[in-house]
Each structure stands twice: as C-alpha cells, then as structure tokens.
C-alpha cells in the first residue's frame, strides 16, 4: 500500500509547483490570481499533512476517552490551528487582488499583465 501521508505531501508539492508556474509565466491576471490561490492551498495542505497520524483519531478529547491512549493516537492539533488562520489570510489577499484587477481593467481595458505593467 502506498503511504497516504507521502502522497498528500506530493499533492501539496504539485499544487505549489503548478501555482508558481501560473503566477510567474501566465499573462492573464485572473489566471495569475488562481495560481496564487493554488500556492496557498498547497502550503496549507503541506502544513496539515505534518500533523497527520496514520490510523490516528481526530484531536478532540471526548468524555470517556483514556488520556494516555488519546495522547498516543491523536493527530497533532497545532498545525490545524495554524492552517485555519492561513486559509482566511489567503482568501482576503485574493479578494484584494481581484479588486485591484477590476480597477485596472476599467483603466486599461485589458486583463493582460504585460500590457498593464509593461510600460514602466
């Protein structure tokens, strides 16, 4: 059987590489922004995978659980708390970028970054 954690890490790596490619090489602003969203999702997935425990349980302590068993089997909750914040930051950055893109479209009449940023 293939290791799930390794596969999740590879997926996050694929997300980051595809996103970087899009953000650097694609010309359309919206596509660049989509690429950046992919980078952020890849980074989140990477962080979360670090706390994963194969065959473990969700890190919520229910009444009736044995504390020692719980400590040995639960996933690591710290990355989950971090990712929660990071998702929100990613969404807000995306919203600001889209707003700027809309203003620039009104001014230049195009979504191509080389035409918008090129004359400087």
């Amino acid at each position: 059987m293939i290791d799930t954690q390794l596969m999740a890490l590879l997926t996050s790596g694929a997300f980051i590489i595809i996103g970087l490619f899009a953000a650097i090489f694609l010309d359309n602003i919206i596509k660049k922004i989509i690429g950046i969203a992919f980078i952020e999702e890849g980074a989140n997935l990477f962080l979360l995978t670090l706390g994963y425990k194969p065959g473990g349980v969700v890190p919520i302590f229910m009444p009736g659980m044995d504390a020692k068993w719980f400590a040995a089997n639960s996933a690591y909750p710290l990355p989950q708390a971090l990712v929660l914040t990071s998702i929100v930051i990613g969404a807000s950055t995306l919203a600001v970028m889209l707003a700027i893109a809309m203003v620039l479209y009104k001014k230049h009449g195009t979504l191509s970054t080389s035409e918008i940023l090129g004359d400087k």
Partner: protein
Amino acid sequence: MIDLIPLMVIIPIICALLLNILHGKNKTVKYFAIIVAIVVPIIPLLANYGLHYFGGHVPLIENSGLLSSLPSYISQTPIANFHLAITYSFESLQKIFIFFFGIVAFLAVFTSFNEMKRSSGAYGFLMFMGIAAVIAMLLSDDIFHMYIFFEIAALVQVGIVLASNTEDNYEAALKYLILGSIGGPILLIGIGFLLGMVGSVNITDIVFAVKNNLVNPLSSVFLLSFILIFFGWLYSAGLPPFHTIKSSIYSKALPSGGALLQAFSVMVFVSFGIAILRIFSVIPYSKILIIVFSALAMILSITMAITQTDFRRILGFLAVGELGYIGLGFGIGTQLSVTAGLFQALNEIIITALLFIGFGTIYYLTKVSDIRKLGGLIGVYPKTAIMILIGGLAMAGVPPLNVFQSKLMLIQSALKAGIPELAIFMIIMSIVTFMTFTKVFHSLYLKPKPRDLELAEEGIPKSATISIAVLLIISIVLGVLFKFITTPIFNFVGGIL
C-alpha cells in the same frame, strides 16, 4: 504593569476599528486619532520588562502543580520547557523600538490630516492597523504569529498605496501584492519545515531544540527551511531581487504613507532578522548570505538611484539602500555589529521619515516630481530647506548626528571582526549616498528656478514643518546621547546571541 504588553497591539487595532464608526464627525476623529497616536509611544515607557503568555498558559516547567500530575514522558523530557501559548516578549530592544516607532507613527498620522480631505476612512484605518501589525511582529516570540502579522502588514502596505491617489499606484500595488502572495506562502512552508522538525513554532523553543541537539542543525530539511524563510525575509525587507518594487511602492505613496511604509519595512526587517539570527546562526554560510544580499541591496539601489529623475523614486531607492547597512550589521554577527545594525535601523526609521515628509512638501507645493523641472525653492521656504539639508547630512553620516554614530559603530565592528573590506565598502557607499543626496538637493533648491515652474499651493502645511522639526531634534539628541540607546541594545543582543 506587565499586563500592559498586549495593549500595545490592542489599542491601535481598536482605534482602527473605531475611526470608521465615527465616520463623518471629522473633528472627533482627528482628536481621537491624535490621542491614540500619543498613547502608543507612552505604553512601552510604562510597561515592565517580561513575558506575556496569552491565556495565561505558562510553560509546564513553571507550573509545578500541573507538572507533578503529568506522566514522566512529559515532565522528564524537553517538552516540559516548551511554550504552550503565544508569547510576547518585551525587553529593552522592544521598548526602544516601539517608543521611537510610535513617535514616527504619531507624526505620520499628524501629517496625514493635511493630505486627506477626510481624516476617517480607509487611510486612517490602514495606518493604525499597520502600526498594530508591526508592533505585534516585534513583540512576538512566535514565528507563525509573526507570519500572520507580516501578511497583515503586507496587505496594509498595499492598502496605503491604493488609498494614496497618486498616478499608477494601482499597477505598483498589484505587482507588490502578486510578489507578496508568492513570498508569503514560501515563508509559510519554511515555517512548516521548522514546525515539522521541532513540533513548536515558538522561537525560544526552536533555539532550545537546536542547542540541545534535539534537531540536527546540519540536516537538509533545516537548511531548506532556512532558505525558504530567508527568501520570505528578502521579500518583506525589500532586499534584492525585490528592491525595485519596494522603492516604487514608496514613491507611489503620500509623504506620510512613505514615512510609515519605510518604518514598517525596517521593523519587519528587524523582527525577522533577529529571528533568523537566533535560529539559523548555526548554519555555517547563513551570515555570509546575509552580507551578500545586503551589499547587493546597497550597490543596486544606489546605482538605480543615480539614474532616476523623479525625486520620489530616488528617495525610495536611497531608503532601500540604507536597509543594507542593517543587514551588514546582522551579517557580521558579533555582539557589537548586531547592536550597531539595530541602532542603524532605529536611526533609519527617523531619518527616512524626515526625508519623506520633507520632500513631500515640495511635491505638495509644485505638483512636479521631475528634478529637471524644479529649482530655486530655497528662496521660497529656506527654513524647511535647511532642515531637510541637515536630515540629508544625517543620512549620509555626518557627525554629530545619529546615523554617524551607528555607521561608525558598524565600521568599527567590521574592523574588529577582521573584515576591513566591508568597512571600506560602507564608507564608499556612504559617500555615494551623500553625492546622490547633494545632487537632488541642488537641483531642487539651489539651481536657478525654471521660468515655467509655478507654485500650486500657498504654503507648506504647518503639521509637516512641525513633524520635520521634531524628527530633526530627535536625530540630534540621539546623536549626542547615543549611549542611552546602545547600552541596553548591547545587553539585549548579548542575551540572544
């Protein structure tokens, strides 16, 4: 008075939110903003040194009642030393920096009232949000917490540029934001590697793990996390390859915005720089890497500054170039050099704020930024011109002003560390900076006034003149009484190295 520590962050955030509730009542907003801006530098003077644990969760080792009830595989292992809560550490460095940053922020807020029609609205909100973010970054002992406020500060910087209503500000903001949203996740992945190795994001814990061989500092994962975090640091500080975009951001902002943006950059530079120095100084080539990028920043920025004709662009490049000195201080890595770098950072916040606000008055007067179309302004406003001249001399490192003291310390530390080449390099760069400044000053003030130059406004706003004067006084006082600043910083640096 240790409970005052989180207030340094909370008060600006609450103020930022309240400013927009009071929207429309212009006078109330002004007084409220000024009162809060005065309170911000006062709190660090009142607060005591110490650590603040959010939620009151102290490390297990300090809580003996709980520790004795835990099994031995927790209480007997290093886990007991780890910090459970987000920790704010308030030491002499934080006190000095937050105090002076608070003064600069106050003056920027004060100046901004004349630049904007309404004092509430997005601009005021962004300024206070940014102030809170960088203060939190400096206080925080938790690298992920720093990352969050770094992202907030990046968004705020973009917002300040957007709210400035200068030409082409949206293009520069979009460029900065795209680069930022690549740099941010890369920094996050670097933090993720550290988290995976140590299991904690607290800097003190990471340093503890490295020092006690819980983590192999020569492993490739540790090296990779260094490279990624270093890349994020380059972006946040505006070192190459990001110096062009950083300087264009400065030049697209209003004078008060420019002053504040440079202060943000310096504070972010310092907080991440200290974190990198503490965690990664065990990696053999880390300091050389810092030196190389700082020297590159100085060379590239100065050469770009010489070729520009827009004085706001020149000022932006000079400001980025000055950041290189701080980096050199960090890179040499002795106690004296890091102290000198930190002192240089403090001076730079003050001097660049002076120059941004000072040269801002010229743009306010003439609405022209091309130095070829300007001239003869010393006849119009001689007082401001002289104050700006002294500010420029201070930036170049003329005694007895404050930057002279820090640059002297930097050169001495380079000589003591056995790198005389760097000392010579710094002296040359100072001279070139001075030349560039003189060229700008000459073409703005001294050369004959072009015939078609007309003044768009009647007079310089009083708030700008007052701000320049206050900053100049601080600069002179710091130059004379520098011992009161450097001694506490020196002791602080001795504690972290």
